[in-house]
């Protein structure tokens, strides 16, 4: 085998010799670099010897080398630039700067394994530049681009720092797998697995510093993304980091400081209303059950004694003396954010570098929730010979996230809202936090306040997640022959995470009364290495034809190893680590591995700069499936109408490019590594080992396949003053890898198989207008997208998630499905539900809303119906940039429309004490009180559960419009700076989430309860923390 390989290698060398020698014999060698007006190299520019087909294309750096006959003339052209003609004469080196003809179109867009100019694109790609991403006071770049890319829906689940962000590119394609896009940083797919141990996912992309990002390309249609094959169905996000430019070394120092507050709060009863409504609800319960209100065993008496107990054993509740706003107590107001950064970039003809260091510490809106990141980046490019370029991209980071429990824990801060407003923060009997100490037992209080007081967790739990991340790659690009470059990349992504959790003695009511402190320590090592080897070939085919071919292979292997140990029984809170635990309560280790072997290619062909064709494809082999290999092809065409003669002589239309693409992509992410094999798993019973069947074999399991068609048009008017894109698409996903429900009698509940289809179709619209040019500049960029998701086939199954979410045929994924609430019975205050109608057609049973069937107070006899959709119907944003003499104002409004939000906590906090003494939302004051009352709030009945069941009662509209980011900046004129040896200086004020317009009756409409979030469980609120509203003041100095 080895022998054979070497033989072939010799053959290759011989071939390149044969190709090269004839050229040397007869001609004059020239070299040079073609750059755009910003000094950056232009890849793919064509240099032709006039009147011949002898020519060459520039490499990724804009450089070229080739040979011409003596006294030749060079024709240098690139799509979107004005062509230049230069006589060669005796010169050997040419540095040519091309002037853009229509600015937008000349922009180089990063695509899979290469770059292309915007004008050449036939696929649908959204791009976001560094300006939109850098210096926004958020922890990850996704938050910075919310509302800025059409068809890319970004939602962070809540206001706890560093938590997972949901990103959906053109909708949801998978029910059981991953729906996040593939993230590729500088050509290398990166780790994006959540490793959180506390039930609330984290976001590994926080390890990247948004300030290092030069640009982002979001590959949306199959033509753009199919080159990433079996991982491209959810779109691909290509992140390119900053690189040095040759010239004097430029230093840049940045500092930003600011504060954060919660965007909005939910409103709860104050002490007086609480006491009044508790009493009323207890009276009602006694009346209904026929118990005299004076009965010492009745509810009225119970409520009164309970109120006294909740008040701290005194009568303060009768006068409203104590009125605790628990929301305020748990929050951290004006939480500080500070960010420091320093970068140096520059280089010479041979070597260019970008070095940057960054430190950010952000405090959350919840006490003791904070996030800290230290990060460095080293990007180096070195030209070893005229043919060989080497380079390095390296990101080193450490993040420390001091976290809060997941939304479902009594220890999570926002569950404090369930506590009674009559309960004092400090128990007057002990002088300590309520619940901290019970003088009667000498132990943490077990019955006071109403629940465990989460403020005790804020002060006595340490949940520190530390991540060390090394993400980097080295590359070498070699010009093998004229127009032919070979590039090899080796990327490594190492993520080491430790979680250090310790709950102190005072948390006993939440962690166990006999536990005496508990803790766990986890370590996870998530590693991935990737090799990409590919050729880029740009033959010179004359002035009318241009062709670029990319072909290569990739191999990728990931491995995750994790260990954990947990312990109990600590001598005191002075001890933090498990080494002090007297009882080791658990320990585990796990390891998982997967690999992907791929062949990929793409050809871009343009004829006469008018007719564009792109073909691409990838063959992927995945270890995750029994049916391993798949082919994912795509094709697209575009027509630059404005290059046609019949449109040349007019001034109105500057660009018109219709384009069409079709292709297939796959999804293999998010499934267990060995879902297709029959496995047994081990356990223990009474200290003796057990094993049981865990999974059933599937010899046919393969990836999900999405066929996407896209038709779009790029347009520009008035020399680009108005430009935009419209795209319409359809994504049909077949063979979902579904964790299907099995009849429980088999001993199994789920089974992975390729069952089911899903569909997304949508429309995207992008419009940029330059409203004012000159001293005063004003640009508006508007985008809007609609995506309609439909589960078209699940093999007849219904899969539940969230509280009332489900995946069911004929509906969008995750629809809210439950009984329809019909308000309070005006006669007696009973919670009513619409009966609605069930239609049985053979074996399929569907339900429809039909109010003619009337209402019932028997929840079980009301049919469950589709109540709403957690997926927004429309998303979009408007960004305005206004500038005048160094002052710039940039603000983005982001909008989400047509979705609903379900409050899972509604059954506890909005039910008139029907489920206990949890403090209630203020809407309960509208409760039914006497016959004839027309209201949506049923009678308050202590513990009787009047209307507590899941229904549309707890569903609200989730539409919102928000002033997402605002930056007001001043760039100092150079004349002022010169004497101070400062080359540039900018002062800026930035705000995030400054204004929110919504009808949502909860806290923040951008919400996705962390512990229950999934593909189906979405659009839920459950004591979730609201988003952060942040203001910062920043300065950037360059010298």
């Amino acid at each position, binding site marked *: 085998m080895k022998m054979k390989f070497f033989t072939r290698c010799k053959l290759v060398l011989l071939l390149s010799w044969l190709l090269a020698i004839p050229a040397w014999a007869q001609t004059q060698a020239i070299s040079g670099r073609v750059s755009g007006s910003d000094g950056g190299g232009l890849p793919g520019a064509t240099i032709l010897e006039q009147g011949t087909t002898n020519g060459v294309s520039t490499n990724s750096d804009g450089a070229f080398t080739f040979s011409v006959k003596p006294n030749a003339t060079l024709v240098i052209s690139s799509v979107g630039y004005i062509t230049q003609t230069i006589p060669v004469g005796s010169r050997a080196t040419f540095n040519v700067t091309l002037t853009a003809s229509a600015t937008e179109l000349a922009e180089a867009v990063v695509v899979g394994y290469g770059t292309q100019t915007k004008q050449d694109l036939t696929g649908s790609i959204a791009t976001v530049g560094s300006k939109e991403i850098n210096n926004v006071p958020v922890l990850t770049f996704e938050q910075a681009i919310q509302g800025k890319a059409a068809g890319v829906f970004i939602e962070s689940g809540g206001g706890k720092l560093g938590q997972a962000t949901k990103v959906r590119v053109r909708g949801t394609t998978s029910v059981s797998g991953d729906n996040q896009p593939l993230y590729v940083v500088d050509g290398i797919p990166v780790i994006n697995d959540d490793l959180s141990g506390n039930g609330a996912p984290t976001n590994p992309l926080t390890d990247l510093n948004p300030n290092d990002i030069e640009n982002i390309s979001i590959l949306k249609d199959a033509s753009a993304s199919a080159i990433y094959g079996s991982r491209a169905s959810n779109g691909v996000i290509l992140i390119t980091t900053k690189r040095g430019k040759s010239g004097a070394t430029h230093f840049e120092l940045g500092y930003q400081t600011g504060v954060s507050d919660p965007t909005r709060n939910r409103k709860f009863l104050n002490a007086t209303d609480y006491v009044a409504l508790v009493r009323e609800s207890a009276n009602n319960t006694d009346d209904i059950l026929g118990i005299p209100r004076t009965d010492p065993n009745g509810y009225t008496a119970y409520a009164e004694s309970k109120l006294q107990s909740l008040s701290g054993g005194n009568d303060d509740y009768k006068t409203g003396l104590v009125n605790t706003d628990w929301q305020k107590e748990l929050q951290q107001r004006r939480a500080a954010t500070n960010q420091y950064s320093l970068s140096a970039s520059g280089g010479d003809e041979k070597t260019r570098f970008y070095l940057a260091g960054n430190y950010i510490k952000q405090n959350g809106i919840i006490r003791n929730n904070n996030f800290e990141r230290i990060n460095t980046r080293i990007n180096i490019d070195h030209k070893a010979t005229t043919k060989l370029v080497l380079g390095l991209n390296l990101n080193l980071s450490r993040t420390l996230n001091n976290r809060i429990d997941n939304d479902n824990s009594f220890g999570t801060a926002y569950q404090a809202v369930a506590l009674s407003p009559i309960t004092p923060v400090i128990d007057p009997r002990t002088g300590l936090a309520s619940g901290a100490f019970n003088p009667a037992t000498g132990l943490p209080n077990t019955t006071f306040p109403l629940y465990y007081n989460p403020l005790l967790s804020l002060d006595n739990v340490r949940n520190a997640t530390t991540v060390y991340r090394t993400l980097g790659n080295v590359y070498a690009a070699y010009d093998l022959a004229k127009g032919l470059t070979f590039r090899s990349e080796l990327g490594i992504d190492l993520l080491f995470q430790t979680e250090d959790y310790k709950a102190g003695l005072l948390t006993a009511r939440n962690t166990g009364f006999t536990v005496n402190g508990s803790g766990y320590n986890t370590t996870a090592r998530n590693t991935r290495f990737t090799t990409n080897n590919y050729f880029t070939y740009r033959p010179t085919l004359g002035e009318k034809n241009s062709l670029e071919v990319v072909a290569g292979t990739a191999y990728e292997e990931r491995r995750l190893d994790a260990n954990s140990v947990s312990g109990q029984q600590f001598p005191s809170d002075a001890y933090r680590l498990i080494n002090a635990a007297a009882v080791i309560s658990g320990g585990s280790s796990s390891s998982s591995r997967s690999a992907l072997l791929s062949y990929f290619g793409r050809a871009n062909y343009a004829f006469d700069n008018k007719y564009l064709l792109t073909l691409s494809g990838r063959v992927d082999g995945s270890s995750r499936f029994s049916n391993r290999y798949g082919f994912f092809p795509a094709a697209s065409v575009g027509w630059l109408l404005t290059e046609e003669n019949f449109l040349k002589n007019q001034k109105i239309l500057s660009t018109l490019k219709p384009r069409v693409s079709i292709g297939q992509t796959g999804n293999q992410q998010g499934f267990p590594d060995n879902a297709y094999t029959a*496995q047994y798993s081990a356990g223990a*019973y009474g200290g003796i080992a057990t094993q049981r069947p865990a999974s059933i074999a599937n010899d046919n399991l393969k990836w999900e396949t999405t066929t996407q068609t896209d038709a779009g048009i790029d347009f520009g008017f008035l020399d680009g003053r108005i430009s935009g894109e419209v795209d319409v698409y359809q994504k049909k996903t077949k063979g979902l890898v579904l964790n299907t429900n099995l009849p429980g009698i088999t001993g199994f509940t789920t089974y992975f198989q390729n069952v089911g289809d899903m569909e997304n179709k949508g429309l995207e619209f992008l419009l940029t207008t330059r409203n004012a040019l000159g001293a005063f500049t004003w640009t508006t960029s508007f985008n809007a997208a609609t995506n309609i998701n439909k589960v078209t086939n699940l093999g007849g199954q219904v899969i539940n998630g969230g509280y009332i979410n489900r995946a069911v045929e004929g509906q969008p994924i995750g629809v809210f499905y439950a009984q329809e609430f019909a308000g309070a019975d005006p006669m007696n205050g009973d919670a009513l539900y619409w009966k609605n109608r069930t239609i049985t057609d053979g074996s399929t049973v569907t339900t429809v809303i039909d109010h003619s069937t009337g209402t019932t107070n028997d929840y079980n006899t009301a049919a469950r119906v589709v109540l709403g959709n957690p997926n927004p119907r429309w998303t979009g944003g408007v960004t305005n940039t206004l500038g005048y003499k160094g002052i710039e104002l940039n603000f983005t409004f982001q909008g989400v429309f047509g979705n609903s939000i379900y409050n899972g906590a509604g059954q506890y906090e909005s039910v008139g004490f029907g489920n206990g003494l949890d403090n209630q939302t203020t809407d309960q004051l509208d409760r039914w009180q006497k016959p004839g009352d027309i209201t949506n709030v049923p009678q308050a009945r202590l513990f009787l559960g009047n209307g507590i069941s899941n229904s549309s009662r707890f569903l609200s509209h989730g539409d919102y419009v928000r002033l997402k980011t605002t930056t007001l900046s001043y760039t100092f004129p150079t004349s002022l700076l010169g004497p101070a040896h400062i080359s540039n200086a900018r002062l800026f004020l930035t705000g995030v989430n400054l204004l929110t317009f919504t009808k949502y009756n909860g806290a923040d409409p951008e919400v996705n309860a962390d512990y229950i979030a999934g593909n189906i469980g979405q659009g839920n609120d459950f004591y979730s923390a609201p988003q952060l509203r942040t203001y910062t003041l920043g300065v950037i100095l360059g010298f």
Partner: protein
Amino acid sequence: MKKIIHVVALGSALLVVPMAGCNSRLDIQPVNTAPADKALNTSADVQSLLRAGYAVVGSVDLYGGRLQYTADLLGDPAGPSGELFWQGTYSQPNEIYNKRITTTNTFVAGTWTQAYQAINIANTVLANLSKVSAVQQAQVEGGARFIRGAMYFELARFYGRDWNDGSPSTNLAVPILLTPTNVQDPSGVLGDAAKLPRNTVADVYAQAISDLTAAESKLKASAPSSPTSSDVATTYTASGMLSRVYLQQQRYDLAAVEADKVISSGIFRLTTPIADEFNSKINTNEDIFDVQITVQAGVNDLNTFYSTNGRGGDISVQQPLLDMFDPADDRLNLFNQDNGVLTTKFDQVYGNIHEMRLSEMYLTRAEGNFRANTTVGGLPVDDINIVRARVNLPPLAATDLTVPIILQERHLELAFEGFYLHDLKRNKLPVGTLPYNSPRLILPIPQREIDVNANLVQNAGY
């Protein structure tokens, strides 16, 4: 053009050849689990599988707590006149307590799926008995049949109408499946074989009796000489479970006979004082069957919901129950005043659940003999007095003994241990205002099961 061909040839050579060896790198075996073909080959393998059956039976969805508290919450009239008071925030038990169970109640679904998981494990053990060494075969078979029999019995009485409610031979219980799921071939779980309709109450009871009788006899050879092996089924556990089945069927003579087998073995002894029985984290001399809970494995869900050491007392005890105790009754020491009055029977967070105790056997033998007019193993009054003596109560005279008195003693002795609903039903006693045969006292067939198996008929009232 020739150049292009060269380039393509060169490209293919450089790219394809070195990658050819990578294909084998896609063969990745999992290491966190064991491939099924390597898991079940030896005698020890089958025994580990059987032990998983016990772990499932002891999970929170079954004897780890839910079967017990579901019977007691459902058997309570609820409200101030009830004996228990649900004050927790979990909506699933709240629905059960208020007899307004939704078909999507996840606790109800969990009990169903876990019981069948135990049954599937038992079926798998039984199908692999040939791999078990000869000396252990009977014991392994007996264990598997105990698990299966106990689970069918519990499923029948929770998801079907009571034995004495109408006609057991037409009332529906749950599907009976006696063959294991083949993990190497998915056709079994995907086809119609997995979509069985519900069998009748009579069928399922017959299956339970057949399994438990077989277990009783298979386990005889390995009958323990001391009570400490109550972590797994012994012949006495099978007898005890059979006595429950017969009692539910009002076959009092047989119930007495089965209970007597346990008592007359002479190896079990009542723990005195009774508080020691419940303070014991480990199996006691009184125990015939214990669910094993350790710090590392298993959860005591009775502790979770009843105890001050669990969730702080989601279920508290109300005066009507406390009033039933004689002031001298030692069992009054099994309460504390915390979040209301709580039982201390389950205060050991990591304590085993004493699932079947000797005192139940005395009470069953007493009731069985009394109602069948037999004296298997002893006089009913003597059995009752043994139970009373342990808790410091004076003996009753034989002439004072009545069925209600026996049932009352049973209620107080076995309170919170999962008997009340079933005792009410078999005696046709109402739960508050609901008659014993109210559909609201029967669990719904879980919606998830009906969604995947159209042959399942939902219970009345849901």
